[in-house]
C-alpha cells in the first residue's frame, strides 16, 4: 500500500551488462547468436530447411543480424501444421516442458522447452520483476492460471530466479485470493489487467484494501490503457507494470515496462524484435506502427525464425530514462486479430475501454463488443455495465445515459455504435485473457 513516486524511484538492474549494453555490442551478440541459430534450424528442422531452400537462402548467406530480412517468416498457421512436435530442433527427450495457448479456432498452439529454455525464460521474467522494483525479499501472489497457459508458471519461474517467494494461487475464487493476499502479506501480485480491476472492486467491497501490503502489480497478457492503469494504481495505491510475452516465443518476460512507462523493454539478447509494415513486410522505422515479429536467438527446443505475432506496435531504440538500452515496444494498440473493421473503420477494443474510462465512473470499464451484419451493413453493439451510483429507476435518465455513452463511443471510434446497458457485474471478468469481441459476421 505505498505507491512510489517517480522522483523517489531507485532503479535496479538484474543484468546490467546486457540491459545497458551499447547498440554495437548488442548487434555483435545478436549477430553471433543468429548465425548459430540459423545453421542450427537449417540442420535440425526440416520445415526451416525447406522454407530456406524455397527462398534460395543458405545458412552461409546469414552473416549478421542485418541479414535477418533474408530469412523466411513463421506464422501461427505453420505452428498448427506442425503440431505438436514438428518444429523441434532437439530430440524429444531433451524437451522438459511444454506450454500452450488455447487456440480459439480448434487445435492449441504448443511450445516446447529444454531445461535451458526454461532457465532463460525465468531469467527474463526476473529482469522484469527487478525492473518493477522487486527483490528476493518480496512475496509475489500469482493469480495467472497455472497449467498450459504460460502466465502462472512464467511468473513463478521469474520469482524463483529472483529468489522471491512465489504464491501460486492460480485464478478463480476472488474472496480467497484476497484473504491469502492479506494473510501471506503479499507485496506484489500478478494477473491480467481486467482481473486486477475485478480484484480492486472486490477488495473495496470486502473492505480489505487498507490491510493489504501490496506495493506493485504486474499486469499483462491483454492490452490495457493508461486510464485503466491509473484506476488500478489509485484503488490499490501501488505501482503497476506491464508485461508482455507469448508462448511461441517463451511466455511472459519477452518484454516489460519500467517505471517511466514509455514502452516495454524487449529482452533482445534472446528475442530479436522487428516491426514490419503489415502490407509489404518491409521494416518500419523507429516510431512507425507495424506488426511485431520475433526471432528466438538462443532457444533450443523450438526455435522460431521471424515469427509473426499479429501484435501491432512501434519500436524505439533510444536509451530509456531508466538507463536501459534494451529497445522499447509501445503498448499495443491491439492485435491484428482483435482489430475489427466496422464499415471500413478500424476499431480496437482498447479504444472502447479508454472512452468508457473517460466518463468518470458513469459506467464501469467492463464491456463486450458484438459485431453483426444486418442488411449487409456492419452493426457494432457495445454492452456496457451500469454502475450502481448512476443507476436510476427512471427510464428517461437511463436512456440519457445510454445516449451519452453512444456519443462518447462514436467520437472515440469514428463509427456509430448501438449501446446496450447491462446489469452491474454481469460482464464476465476474465481470469486469463479477457474476451472482448464477439463477431457474428460470416466474413
Amino acid at each position, binding site marked *: 500500500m505505498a505507491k512510489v513516486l517517480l522522483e523517489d524511484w531507485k532503479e535496479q538492474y538484474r543484468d546490467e551488462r546486457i540491459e545497458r549494453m551499447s547498440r554495437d555490442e548488442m548487434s555483435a551478440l545478436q549477430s553471433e547468436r543468429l548465425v548459430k541459430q540459423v545453421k542450427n534450424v537449417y540442420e535440425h528442422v526440416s520445415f526451416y530447411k525447406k522454407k530456406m531452400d524455397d527462398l534460395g537462402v543458405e545458412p552461409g548467406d546469414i552473416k549478421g543480424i542485418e541479414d535477418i530480412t533474408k530469412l523466411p517468416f513463421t506464422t501461427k498457421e505453420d505452428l498448427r501444421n506442425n503440431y505438436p512436435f514438428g518444429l523441434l530442433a532437439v530430440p524429444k527427450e531433451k524437451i522438459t516442458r511444454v506450454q500452450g495457448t488455447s487456440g480459439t479456432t480448434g487445435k492449441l498452439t504448443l511450445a516446447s522447452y529444454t531445461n535451458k529454455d526454461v532457465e532463460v525464460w525465468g531469467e527474463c521474467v526476473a529482469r522484469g520483476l527487478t525492473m518493477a522494483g522487486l527483490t528476493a525479499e518480496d512475496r509475489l501472489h500469482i493469480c495467472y492460471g497455472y497449467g498450459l497457459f504460460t502466465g502462472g508458471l512464467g511468473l513463478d519461474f521469474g520469482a524463483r530466479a529472483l529468489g522471491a517467494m512465489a504464491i501460486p494461487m492460480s485464478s478463480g475464487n476472488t474472496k480467497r485470493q484476497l484473504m491469502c493476499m492479506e494473510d501471506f502479506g503479499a507485496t506484489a501480485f500478478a494477473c491480467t489487467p481486467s482481473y486486477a480491476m475485478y480484484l480492486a472492486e472486490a477488495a473495496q467491497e470486502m473492505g480489505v484494501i487498507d490491510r493489504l501490503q501490496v506495493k506493485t502489480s504486474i499486469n499483462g497478457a491483454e492490452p490495457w490503457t493508461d486510464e485503466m492503469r491509473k484506476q488500478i494504481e489509485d484503488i490499490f495505491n501501488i505501482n503497476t507494470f506491464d508485461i508482455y510475452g507469448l508462448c511461441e516465443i517463451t511466455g511472459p518476460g519477452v518484454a516489460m515496462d519500467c517505471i517511466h512507462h514509455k514502452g516495454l523493454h524487449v529482452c533482445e539478447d534472446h528475442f530479436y524484435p522487428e516491426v514490419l509494415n503489415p502490407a509489404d513486410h518491409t521494416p518500419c522505422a523507429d516510431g512507425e506502427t507495424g506488426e511485431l515479429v520475433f526471432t528466438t536467438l538462443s532457444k533450443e527446443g523450438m526455435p522460431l525464425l521471424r515469427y509473426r505475432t499479429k501484435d501491432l506496435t512501434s519500436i524505439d531504440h533510444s536509451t530509456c530514462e531508466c538507463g536501459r538500452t534494451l529497445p522499447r515496444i509501445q503498448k499495443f494498440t491491439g492485435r491484428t486479430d482483435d482489430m475489427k473493421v466496422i464499415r471500413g473503420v478500424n476499431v480496437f477494443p482498447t479504444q472502447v475501454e479508454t472512452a468508457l474510462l473517460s466518463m468518470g465512473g458513469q459506467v464501469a470499464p467492463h464491456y463486450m463488443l458484438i459485431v453483426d451484419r444486418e442488411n449487409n451493413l456492419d452493426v457494432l453493439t457495445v454492452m456496457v455495465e451500469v454502475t450502481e451510483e448512476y443507476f436510476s429507476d427512471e*427510464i428517461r435518465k*437511463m436512456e440519457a445515459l445510454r445516449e451519452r455513452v453512444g456519443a462518447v463511443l462514436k467520437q472515440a471510434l469514428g463509427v456509430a455504435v448501438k449501446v446496450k446497458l447491462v446489469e452491474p*457485474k454481469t460482464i464476465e471478468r476474465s481470469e486469463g485473457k479477457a474476451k472482448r469481441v464477439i463477431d457474428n459476421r460470416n466474413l
Partner: protein
Amino acid sequence: MSISYTVQQLSVFLENRAGRLDDVLKVLSEGGVNIVALSLADTADYGMLRMIVSDPHKGRVVLKEAGITAMLTDVIAFRVAHATGSLSKAMHQLVEGEINIEYMYAFANGIDAAAVLKSDEPGRVVDILTGCGFTVYSADEAYSANV
C-alpha cells in the same frame, strides 16, 4: 413522531434475459419479502421493475446478496376510490399545480385502489393531494396494504 408520506419503492434494473424476473422474485420470496404492488416497464434492451414491498430495506439487502442491483426510490401512494373519474380528479389537481410526473402505476385492494407516482417534488404532491381530499398512504400503511 411525524408520519412519513414518502414510500420507498424497490427498483430493479433487469436485462432482457430469460429467467431474470423469476430470479428476482425468487430471491424476494426466499427472503420473506412480500410484494404489495409492482410495475414492469420495458424497453428493447432492458426492463425496469418497480415494487412496493413489505420491507424495502430488507428487499434491497437480499437482492444485493444475490448479486442483483436494486435501489430505493421515494414515491407517493394515495387512495383512489372505485369510482369513475377519481383518478382524473387527482391528476387534474396535479397538472394545475404544474407537477411533473415521471411515471405512475396503480394497484387495487378490497375497498378501493391506490395509485403510486414518482415526482421530483414529492412534498408538493402530498400537499396538493391532501388539500383536495385525497388520502395519502403513510409508508407503513403502504408496506402493509393488502395484507
